[in-house]
């Protein structure tokens, strides 16, 4: 009755969907050659999002998108972006004929908790792919784990250059854009609107993502003639930024760049507006504030303060292309409000993964990696897109957005100023800001 099974690398774990009670407990352990190979009539994906802590709302929105994607993959609902996706491999009958099931977990936006949660999905629930997340620290941590364990990681919202730079991994893929792209897209718009003779003052959240964004923005703006007056690091735990903002006006700078995200961004922007920076004239020019990475969910927290402030975003629901419209309609009908960029990237990642499995004809991570590397596609809301083989980063158009002056609803906070074409934000895989890491080779885990 009992039988021992030895596996050298990783826990070999098959079938059985915990909790769902749907899969039959058949343990036909065919030597599939990869970890968590689905044996029953279903396949399990792991969605690891922040459910507690400051990013819980963003995580909830990601989860909504995942649920929607799973619905569409299984042929339920209106199909959303499946109908506009350029690859037609997906049939709406799950992935490779297997019904898509999912498990969820809480990253708490902490590397440790996120890894624990991802591990439990892999070890306990037999998840074959992990996706989601709302910060770069977590993305890098979980990506590393998935590489070691031998499953695919489809990153959620992560903007740091490192995720596909020095911490890139063969089993990890990022659809979201990065700090370098934000800078490359923003700089020309900034030059056009504010001129090329400006003095910038950076306030930067003192951790990895903040540093890479500061570096990227400073480099791009200096290249077009701006001068960087000062770069000041602010503690991550800071809630009141008054003592960092107060000296800005007297420093001779006429632009304030806020390299902050989430709660930090809401507070620093609110504080900056409170200090009346935007009504001031410095060097004979209007004082301006820039928030390089915008998120609508967070913009909502800053309220009126975002009006007229420039930034960049991966995607916005007001885009008029067919794919975005289909997604907004699908999401909006189900949940009653438009999706965030985090939701969009998670939805797209799920579809991309499923499609890669279909095209590869297997769930084997190595097959999926091969199918995704160098994959050109369209119809997922960002125009023609490339999954570059060298670093597993998506290359696509970047949106430059501005806080809207006269919002018509509580969701209508940002307007798209410019769609920066993909060619303008591309860079070489060995660009110094991305150098240092090694992709390695795919790990199927068994």
């Amino acid at each position, binding site marked *: *009755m*009992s*039988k*021992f*099974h030895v*596996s050298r*690398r*990783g*826990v*070999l*774990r098959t*079938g*059985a*969907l*915990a*909790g769902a*009670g*749907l*899969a*039959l*407990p058949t*343990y036909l352990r065919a030597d599939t050659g990869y970890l968590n190979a689905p044996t029953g009539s279903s396949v399990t994906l792991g969605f690891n999002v922040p*459910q*507690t802590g400051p990013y*819980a709302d963003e995580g*909830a929105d990601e989860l909504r998108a995942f649920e929607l994607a799973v619905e569409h993959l299984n042929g339920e609902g209106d199909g959303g972006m499946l109908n506009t996706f350029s690859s037609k491999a997906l049939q709406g009958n799950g992935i490779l004929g297997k019904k898509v*099931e*999912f*498990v*969820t*977990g*809480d990253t708490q936006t*902490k*590397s*440790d908790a996120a*890894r*624990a*949660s991802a*591990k*439990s*999905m892999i*070890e*306990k629930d037999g998840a074959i792919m992990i996706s989601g997340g709302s910060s*770069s*620290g977590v993305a*890098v*941590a979980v990506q*590393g*784990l998935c590489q*070691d364990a031998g499953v695919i990681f489809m990153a959620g919202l992560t903007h740091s250059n*490192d995720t596909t730079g020095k911490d890139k991994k063969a089993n990890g893929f990022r659809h979201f854009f990065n700090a370098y792209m934000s800078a490359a897209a923003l700089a020309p718009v900034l030059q056009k609107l504010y001129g090329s003779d400006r003095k910038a003052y950076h306030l930067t959240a*003192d*951790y*990895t993502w903040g*540093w890479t964004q500061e570096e990227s923005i400073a480099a791009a703006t200096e290249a077009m003639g701006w001068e960087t007056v000062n770069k000041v*690091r602010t*503690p*991550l735990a800071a809630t009141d930024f008054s003592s960092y903002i107060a000296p800005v006006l007297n420093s001779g700078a006429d632009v304030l760049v806020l390299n902050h995200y989430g709660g930090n961004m809401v507070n620093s922007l609110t504080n900056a507006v409170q200090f009346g920076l935007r009504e001031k004239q410095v060097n004979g020019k209007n004082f301006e504030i820039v928030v390089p990475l915008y998120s609508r969910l967070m913009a909502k927290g800053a309220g009126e303060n975002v009006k007229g402030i420039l930034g960049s975003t991966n995607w916005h629901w007001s885009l008029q292309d067919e794919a975005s419209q289909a997604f907004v309609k699908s999401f909006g009908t189900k949940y009653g409000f438009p999706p965030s960029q985090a939701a969009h990237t998670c939805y797209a990642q799920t579809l991309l993964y499923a499609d890669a499995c279909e095209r590869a004809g297997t769930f084997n991570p190595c097959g999926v990696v091969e199918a995704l590397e160098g994959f050109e596609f369209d119809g997922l809301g960002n125009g023609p897109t490339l999954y570059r083989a060298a670093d597993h980063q998506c290359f696509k158009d970047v949106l430059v957005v501005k806080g809207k002056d006269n919002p018509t609803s509580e969701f209508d906070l940002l307007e798209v100023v410019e769609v920066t074409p993909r060619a303008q934000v591309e860079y070489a895989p060995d660009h110094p800001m991305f150098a240092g890491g*090694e992709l*390695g080779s795919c790990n199927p885990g068994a």
Partner: protein
Amino acid sequence: MFGLQKKDTTLLLVVAALALFAPFLLNPFPEGSAMAQFNAGYPDLMQRFVIFGIFAVGFNILFGLTGYLSFGHAAFLGVGSYSAVWMFKLLGYNVIPGIILSVIVAGLFSVVIGYVSLRRSGIYFSILTLAFAQMSYNMAYSVLGNPTSNFNLTNGETGLQVYTSDPQILASAGAPDLPHLFGLTMRSSYQLELGSWLFTFNAGYYLCAVLLLVSFYVAIRIFRSPFGLMLRAVKSNQQRMNYTGLNTRPYTLAAFVISGMYAGLAGGLLSTMDPLAGAERMQWTASGEVVLMTILGGAGTLIGPVLGAGFIKYFENIFSKINEGVLHAWFGFLPDGLENGVIWVVEHFVGPGWHLTLGLLFMLVVTFLPGGLVEGGQKIAALLSRRKSKDTDNRATQSTPAE
């Protein structure tokens, strides 16, 4: 046996049996059944139970015996984690040097912090330890972790990890590129199938379990030693001790350092099981967590902290993963209207609401079981034995071991 009293030997044997058979005990539900969601017998969580058990047992040596409430023990956990990963980076993936160094470095750290903090008592001591830990956390997260600087000790937010470019001077060719004990990787597992049950025996878990037993044994010896008695005396009345002309500081400092080393061991093991060390391990919430574990389980008891650690980690890892789909599978047998009603209620306490459940349980346990979970266990035991021997006098209920 082992120089222990009979009662303690029994306790040690019980813990040993629990640890040995944990893969069975934690997986009581067959695979694929609706209740399998509550199974905790997978390697990562079992490792966490044991590692945080070690952390809490060590914390209890300080808090349970001397009454000194440290709010900064996470610093030692973090330092231990970083030391172990540095050993992996510099020497190679064999876990022995990492674990040893993590204990040593945490010990040194606790000598310094303990020496300074123990100059004060009560809440002043708590805040001193908190301040040291928060300083360590903030520095590790930012200044000491900037990859572009020459002094990148912690790798900041991303967490310290092993890169292929690291020297690993002792790594022999053909050794696994994962933490291993002389070739046996921490991740390797045996799986046993019995009917529709599936049990996983993980090498890393058993390494942790062995170290837990050693730690537990040492803790028992400390509790029963004259040194332990001295520490208890400090708790009950430090002033009187001082009046007798006895300097209690060396004793409390020793307790502090020992518990710091336990924390370092736990940190080292965390890195050993999963070679990435993040700064959040040093945050005050992590220090608070071990305080909660100890009080929840029963401060001053031997087994309590282990129970508390298991309790909190169980909720964090199991309850947070219950989502609406799972609930629908559970309550699918109910009529539709009722099903939705039940799910609407339960939903608040699972998934994103797991914090709420944990908070409520903290309040309930501490209100109704002042002695923590251990007291709950004693009450149940007393109830059972009363039922068994209704006629005998209830001396039996009072003789339940207090520790």
